[in-house]
């Protein structure tokens, strides 16, 4: 059971999580936050113990045991210029990484664009969904899944999953972790607005793939090259021979 009081005591934010909705079971926290008009306050957080239709990119699913992990979404409605949205996207993974490192002293890396890894295994994933009217983004739901106390992960995965419990060798408080992530996230959203290059630099420092030879797979297409850097939007700069290309989607792995 999630102890809302314990979470609330640790929450140190102005607006993120101040409207907090907890539910046992839901289709997808992103979908509900974007489509339900009752949840319209900027910074609303919706936490579900179990998602019936938790998902990743395209037709992938996000599987998470009920009651052991954190699956939640944050609604943002203000200052959603394109630039900020991309920085907030990378910054969300940074907020999760910092929280896990601060609380459990684990060595956390990031994989482009927003996977969170410990010992090369995936400990958290992020999927952002937004709604645009005409050419303006009006609402953004940042969906975050963190593997917290799940003991094992049967099945086949593209990247081997792990949990904080597996890496830290102890059961941990989900309430404390969620408040730490949201505290970091709100600070990051402010920095993304005022000093986006700082967020991008912090992200770079945690991505060990920059400078390495990588492959990027999307559907049946594969590109290979050197992961040179990310640009001011967070797009991956891939260098192949003397040509550079900006990549905005695809699965990245080391060659």
């Amino acid at each position, binding site marked *: 059971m999630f102890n809302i009081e314990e979470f609330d005591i640790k929450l140190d934010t102005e607006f993120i999580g101040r409207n907090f909705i907890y539910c046992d079971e839901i289709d997808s926290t992103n979908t509900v936050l974007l489509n339900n008009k009752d949840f319209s306050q900027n910074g609303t957080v919706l936490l579900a113990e179990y998602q019936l239709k938790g998902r990743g990119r395209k037709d992938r699913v996000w599987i998470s045991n009920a009651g052991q992990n954190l699956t939640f979404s944050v609604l943002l409605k203000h200052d959603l210029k394109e630039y900020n949205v991309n920085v907030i996207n990378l910054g969300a993974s940074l907020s999760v990484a910092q929280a896990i490192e601060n609380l459990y002293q684990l060595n956390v890396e990031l994989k482009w664009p927003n996977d969170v890894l410990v010992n090369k295994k995936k400990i958290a994933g992020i999927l952002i969904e937004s709604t645009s009217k005409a050419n303006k983004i009006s609402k953004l739901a940042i969906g975050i899944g963190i593997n917290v106390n799940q003991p094992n992960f049967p099945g086949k995965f593209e990247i081997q999953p792990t949990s904080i419990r597996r890496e830290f060798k102890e059961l941990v408080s989900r309430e404390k972790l969620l408040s730490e992530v949201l505290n970091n996230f709100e600070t990051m959203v402010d920095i993304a607005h005022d000093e986006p290059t700082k967020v991008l630099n912090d992200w770079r420092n945690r991505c060990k793939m920059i400078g390495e030879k990588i492959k990027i797979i999307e559907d049946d297409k594969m590109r290979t090259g050197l992961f040179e850097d990310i640009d001011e939007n967070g797009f991956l700069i891939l260098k192949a021979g003397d040509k550079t290309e900006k990549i*905005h989607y695809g699965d990245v792995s080391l060659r």
Partner: protein
Amino acid sequence: MVEQSEITEFSVQEGDLKVKISKNSHQAAQVSIQPGSEIVRQTTALPVVTPAEIKPAETAQTNLHEIKSPIVGTFYRAPAPDADPYAQVGSMVSPGTVLCIVEAMKLMNEIEADVSGKIVKILVENATPVEYNQPLFLIET
């Protein structure tokens, strides 16, 4: 300067600022500054084209509304590779109807129509890159 030259009218534009200087035979030179979005550069005594006479190509057909991309990313017409497209040429849409997704870095951005009408053209191929503000759909209103 205008007084002393043979030029009777002269207009120049930088960005949104348009300056038009004209000299009528017995009147003092007049300067008018008008905002405009047309690209007009005239430095000769050719008949001056006034802003009202210039129409950008996109508004030439007044009943067509463009839906543009709010972000740089990849354009998808369907929510998943094997799913039906959100919208087809000929589909009737209204404000709030989802038309497509533009994805950038695991940010799936659903783009909704902001007008009522009929889709008459889809300007981008599925799964291809789009730029910021690139037109995606034409809707006849």
